[in-house]
C-alpha cells in the first residue's frame, strides 16, 4: 500500500509516496537520499537513526513513515547553514573531539539539539539523560557530554 504524504523536511515542504510497512529511516535514506541518518541496531536501541519530529528526538528505525504526514522533520542534513556554516552543536562536537568514527554522531547531535531547543541551559544530568539513548563505541562519551555543555554555554 502506497500513500502520498506531505511533510516539512529540514524546513522544506516535501511530497513523497510512503508505504504502510516502511519506517521513517527507510523513507529518509531510500526515497529521499538522506544518508546522514544511520541504521545501527534496527530495534530502537542504539540511537544512530535519531531524527527530530515536531521538536522531539525519536528513533526513526521503528517509527512508521506514514506517521510524519503533516509533521516537521529535522535530520543532520538540515543543521548547517546553506553556506556550509556548521550549527553550534556541530561546531562544539568538532572543537571538543566528540567525533571518532562518526557513525553515531548524527544521532548524538540531533538528541543534543532537541534537548537544547527545549532547555537551552541543561544540567549535566539532563544532558546525560537526553543522550542516554545514543550509543557510542569509540569516544567513551566524555567528549560528547563536554561538547553539549560547550554548545549550551555558547547560547544566549
Amino acid at each position, binding site marked *: *500500500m502506497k*500513500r502520498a504524504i506531505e511533510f516539512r523536511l529540514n524546513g522544506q515542504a516535501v511530497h513523497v509516496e510512503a*508505504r*504502510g*510497512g*516502511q*519506517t521513517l529511516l527507510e523513507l529518509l535514506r531510500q526515497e529521499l537520499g538522506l544518508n546522514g541518518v544511520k541504521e545501527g541496531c*534496527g*530495534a*530502537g*536501541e542504539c*540511537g544512530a537513526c*535519531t531524527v527530530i519530529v515536531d521538536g*522531539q*528526538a*525519536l*528513533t526513526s*528505525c*521503528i*517509527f*512508521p513513515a*506514514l*506517521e510524519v*504526514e503533516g509533521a516537521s522533520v529535522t535530520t543532520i542534513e538540515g543543521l548547517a547553514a546553506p553556506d556550509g556554516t556548521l550549527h553550534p552543536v556541530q561546531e562544539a562536537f568538532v572543537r571538543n573531539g566528540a567525533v571518532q568514527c562518526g557513525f553515531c554522531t548524527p544521532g548524538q547531535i540531533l*538528541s543534543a539539539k*532537541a*534537548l537544547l531547543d527545549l532547555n537551552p541551559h541543561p544540567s549535566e544530568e539532563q544532558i546525560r*539523560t*537526553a*543522550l*542516554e*539513548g*545514543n*550509543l557510542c563505541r569509540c569516544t567513551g562519551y566524555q567528549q560528547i557530554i563536554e561538547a553539549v555543555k560547550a554548545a549550551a554555554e555558547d547560547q544566549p
Partner: protein
Amino acid sequence: MKDMAYHKPASLAEALELKQSLGEGAIFLAGGTDVMVQARQRKIAPQALISLRGIAELRGARLEGDTLLLGAGTTLSQILADPLIALHLPVLTDAARVMGSTQMRNVATVGGNVMSAAPSGDTLCPLLCLEAVCHLASAEGLRLVPMQEMFLGPRRTAAQPGEVLTHLAIPLPAAGGHASAGAFLKLSRRAALDLALINLAAQLWLNADGGRIEKARVAAGVVGPTPLRLPEAEEALTGAPPTAATLERATQSLGGTCSIRDSHRCAAWYREEMLRVLLMRAGALALQRLGVSLEVEA
C-alpha cells in the same frame, strides 16, 4: 518489513470500526516501539496496522473527582512532564523515568506498555499497586477490567481482540486526606535502554497519627509469567509501624506468590536476593516521601 495497509483513524469510533471490518490480521499500534520492532524481526506479520496516534481523546491525564483518568496514548515523556502525576502518583513517575531512553519515552505510551504485557513492563507494577482499572472499548461498548485481572501470561492480556485500551482509571491514593506515597525501583544491567532483571513498586498508606501502615500494595515484575501483586508482603506491612524492622519482616515473608526462574539474563537466586533488597529500598523511599526517614542498610 513486508508491505501492509496502514490506517490512522482520527477517532476511537473510527478505530473500532476499522478493526471490526479488517479482522484478525489488523493490529493496533499505540507508540509502535514494541509493534514495529516485532514486525521488523518478523515475530508478527500483521496485514494492517491501525495507528492510534491520531486519536486526541486517548492522550493526557485529567482528574475526575478522586480518580485520575490517564489516557492510554499518553507517552512516557508526557507522564514525566505532568504535574498532576508527579504530585499524586510519584510511583508511576519513577517507572516512566527509567524506561528505554529519551527517544523511546517520546513515542512509547503507557497503554502500549500495558497491552504488550511483558513480565518486565516497568509501568505495570505501579499500576498494580495503584489498583488502576483498564477501560476497554469495543464495538459492543465499554468494559472495565481491574489491573490485577489484566495479565494472563507473558504478552497475554484479558483484552479481547476487538478491544482498545482507552484509559487507566487510577483512584488517587491520597483521596479522603490519607497520607500515601509510593516508590518504584528497577534493577537492570544498564541504566538506560535495558529491560528490568527485576522491578518492584510499593504504595503505602499511613493511619491518621502516622504510627501504623494502614494499607500496603506491593507488586513485582520478572518474578513470574506476569507482573504480580505480592500479598504476603502486603500482609506483613499492614498494621505494622513504619519502621526498618517492619520492612525487614516483609522481605522475610516473600516467596510464596512468585515463581522466579533462571533466564539467560539473570540467575534465579540473584533475582530472589534482589527482590528482598528492592522491597527494602522501595519501602524506605515510599516512607521517606511520607516524611518518615529510616536507616536502611540494604
